[in-house]
């Protein structure tokens, strides 16, 4: 988040667009109020129709609908999450779905609040997941989820469109008290009315030590090294912001939404094109399986995954050129049924003890103050490997080279998607 914090006035979301967002939140609150009476609100069939409706409604604050939420726990809590993102173990981790007894954190929550949790690792990629909920959100219908975890750029999009329920801050005292300062004051939600971070992470290089050694290839330390491995054994990410962001760094360009031009992205495209012709593939979170099957030897990966869920030979390295930094955020989508339970869960995971327990398992950067102390305590008897510790608490040298390439101006985003699709063959 550092790149973003340095310049909080992002051109991505102008004041006008932000106001439009709050107005839409009003529409959403109105629709939610209609649907709570039992009858589903009339679906708005197209995006243009929902946009056309904005000027006719006053930019109401959605607060009344929040105050109306009864403070009783209801369930089960439907929670859509990324794989390898909580202490899920055993068969449940393979099935990507929580089963009783598979996660200490969820077990504690269930015991404390006497409610069931339907925790599913349904999100492999922001775009693909967004496509599954976007039609419902546009139509003002429930998405089926009470809590979703999405990356900055998508969280900003969902919130500015008014598709997130407002969080009642009085229900989340742990969040208000323990959110790390560096993550506060996002332009798209400055007061955390609609989101709280789940984990932050970095995008860098992952590789399988044994595979590379048997092919007599030196372990990669820079992005240039990644370009030098047989592309058939390499995968980049379907999250185009990560792939192109690292691509910019590899070319020695600054990965900064304010400075990057369409030409820069074109240069990255042209730099990756030969690899694609040589057999490079693009992977979502499924790179974990590809590493396990030895299909992939080296790849662009997200920082905590290989350490928490990969094999012993699968390692993560911060490339010399720098890393991408991003945050995945918890949001309550419009139309959620168990809003209070979702808020209770946010509050629960912002308890430093719980946050430390999660961080100690997933190896990502916790957004919760005091989680670091808990992690250190948990590993008193057997201190963590320094490499793993660097994932949880990135060293200053790494932090200095973190780039946030999340919030792109509309035109740049379209260019990025088009260039990415051209590479991916779509």
């Amino acid at each position: 988040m550092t790149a973003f914090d340095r310049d909080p006035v992002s051109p991505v979301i102008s004041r006008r667009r932000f106001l439009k967002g709050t107005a839409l939140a009003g529409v959403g609150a109105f629709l939610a109020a209609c649907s709570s009476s039992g009858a589903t609100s009339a679906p708005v069939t197209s995006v243009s129709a929902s946009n056309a409706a904005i000027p006719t409604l006053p930019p109401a604050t959605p607060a009344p609908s929040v105050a109306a939420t009864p403070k009783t726990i209801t369930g089960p809590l439907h929670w859509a999450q990324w794989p390898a993102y909580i202490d899920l173990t055993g068969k449940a981790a393979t099935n990507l779905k929580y089963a009783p007894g598979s996660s200490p954190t969820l077990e504690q929550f269930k015991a404390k609040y006497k409610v069931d949790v339907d925790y599913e690792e349904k999100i492999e990629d922001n775009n693909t997941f967004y496509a599954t909920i976007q039609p419902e959100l546009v139509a003002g219908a429930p998405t089926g989820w009470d809590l979703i975890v999405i990356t900055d750029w998508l969280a900003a999009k969902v919130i500015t469109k008014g598709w997130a329920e407002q969080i009642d801050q009085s229900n989340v005292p742990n969040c208000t008290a323990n959110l790390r300062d560096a993550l506060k004051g996002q332009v798209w939600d400055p007061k955390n009315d609609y989101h709280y971070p789940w984990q932050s992470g970095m995008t860098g290089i992952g590789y399988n030590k044994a595979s590379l050694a048997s092919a007599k290839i030196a372990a990669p330390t820079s992005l240039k090294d990644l370009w030098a491995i047989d592309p058939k054994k390499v995968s980049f990410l379907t999250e185009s912001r990560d792939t192109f962001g690292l691509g910019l760094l590899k070319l020695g360009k600054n990965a900064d939404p304010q400075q990057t031009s369409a030409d820069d992205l074109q240069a990255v495209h042209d730099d990756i094109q030969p690899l694609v012709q040589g057999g490079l593939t693009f992977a979502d979170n499924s790179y974990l399986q590809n590493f396990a099957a030895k299909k992939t030897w080296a790849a662009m990966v997200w920082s905590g995954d290989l350490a928490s869920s990969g094999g012993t030979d699968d390692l993560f390295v911060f490339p010399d050129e720098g890393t991408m930094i991003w945050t995945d955020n918890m949001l309550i989508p419009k139309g959620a049924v168990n809003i209070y339970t979702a808020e209770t869960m946010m509050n629960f995971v912002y308890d430093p003890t719980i946050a430390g327990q999660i961080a100690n398992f997933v190896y990502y950067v916790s957004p919760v103050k005091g989680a670091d102390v808990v992690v250190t305590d948990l590993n008193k008897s057997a201190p963590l490997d320094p490499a793993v510790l660097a994932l949880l608490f990135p060293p200053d040298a790494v932090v200095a080279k973190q780039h946030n390439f999340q919030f792109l101006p509309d035109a740049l985003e379209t260019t990025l998607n088009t260039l990415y699709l051209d590479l991916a063959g779509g």
Partner: protein
Amino acid sequence: MTAPSLPVRVGPTGPSFRQRVGKATPYLLLAPGILWLLIFFILPTFQMFLTSVSTGSLDNGFKLTWSGAAYVTSLTKFGTQFENSLIYGGIATLLTFAIGFPVAYTIAFRGGRWKNFLLFIVIAPFFTSFLIRTISWKVLLLDNGPVLGFLRDTLHLLPADASVIGTPIAVIAGITYNFLPFMILPLYVALEKIDPRLIEAANDLYASRWGAFRRVTIPLALPGIFAGSILTFIPALGDYVNAILLGSPQTQMIGNVIQSRFLLLGDYPVAAALSFILMAAILVAVSIYARVLGTEQLTG
């Protein structure tokens, strides 16, 4: 007329209620199907056509401008993917026929009391999800998987860097496997209907076994061949799952383009235009195919 016991029809001079109902019966029976098609096929198709001639973006909405730009983009930019679809779909259809015909023939003429069991085996894969089956192929075809590993390391038939996953071979293999039952079942139905005495008669008339097969069995099986190849070729042409899971960026098909334009880029006009072009291409191909095979044989 002095017998008042005969029932006398009273009412207006037009057709009776029962007559009217009788006349309307076919329409009443068709109504659910027609309504279904109207609401879930005709209307969306019309909507999609309007989208294909609109301009705009997902965030700001699409406006009907009757612009043909989406069609120009569709026809100029995605030649490779259209080509891939045609080639992969075509080869897969030929392969399903080559594999499926002997299977259907054997079940129909030699199946005996095992017929039902054999047919069950043919459709058994359908009890598993399409995705799971395709992902299993991915596992099978991996570089160190059971197939390649065995051929390369045990039999030394393949060079060390042999790879199938990510090549057209993997995609075609996946499509062939996934659509095979759609070929076998119509072929079986057509072959099963053939009266064996016709083949005997051909033999009596001095036809060789091959001659009888060519001039009796094949013509009688034509409706099955037609139905089977249509049922395989059309969905294979629009398939995108096999290309995603088994292919690489070079083996993407037109279905992948439509999917990513709709879901990733939010470029609805081009996605809709591509769908229309695909639909038109299929219609043209099928009507040529029907003309060549002769429609009266297909309905008979």
